[in-house]
């Protein structure tokens, strides 16, 4: 996932690679997502998030809909 200056930069990046546009987050959403995802990563007792925990995390920062669906 990349950072872009503006919407038209995303559009150009997608167009030049001939790929469809994905989904966008604000930097604040990205920070909240990254914080909850990684805050325990260095702790000895760390373990991966479960599917359900990941779904709850995405929802907690407002990421919902088919693009964010984790189940095939």
């Amino acid at each position, binding site marked *: 996932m990349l950072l872009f*200056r503006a919407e038209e930069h995303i559009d150009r990046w997608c167009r030049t690679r001939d790929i469809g546009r994905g989904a966008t987050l604000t930097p*604040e959403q990205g920070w909240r997502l990254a914080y909850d995802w990684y805050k325990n990563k*260095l702790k000895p007792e760390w373990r991966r998030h479960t599917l359900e925990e990941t779904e709850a995390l995405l929802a907690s920062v407002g990421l919902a809909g088919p693009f964010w*669906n984790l189940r*095939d």
Partner: protein
Amino acid sequence: MVHMIQTSGQFDAFSRDVRLHVFSKAAETGGIPQPPEIAAALGRPQAKVEQALRQLAADKVLILAPNDGNIWAANPFCAVPSPFRVETRGRTYWGICIWDALGIAAALGADAVIRAACGDCSEPMLLEITDGKLTRSEGIIHFAVPAHRWWDNIGFT
């Protein structure tokens, strides 16, 4: 970077030791130790370390480089310079993407300055974390790949 979902989830004791060593060194130094250094530090054969790293990669704890068995990323830390540079605690770190760059500040629990570049035009962009808050930011984060396919090609994701 999300580490999903269908993995063994089982770490043996040595894989756990390798994980703790890799991540503690990455946090402490900004550099990621590679198999020879890990083997020397833990006093175990390099082949055993490489086996543990393959297990950790299969469990999506870290990412190996395609051809040589070295660690590319112990997320959120990247082993090589990238367009996502994080300055914190007097050191420089790199993330493989903007999520991981933010994740470095989260994992370290430290104030940080993130020097990124626009994915399109490469213009510099700046974000800052202060006291656990995003205090300066610009731009828009774009996910090109739907969530359930992130690990199909994690390098592209």
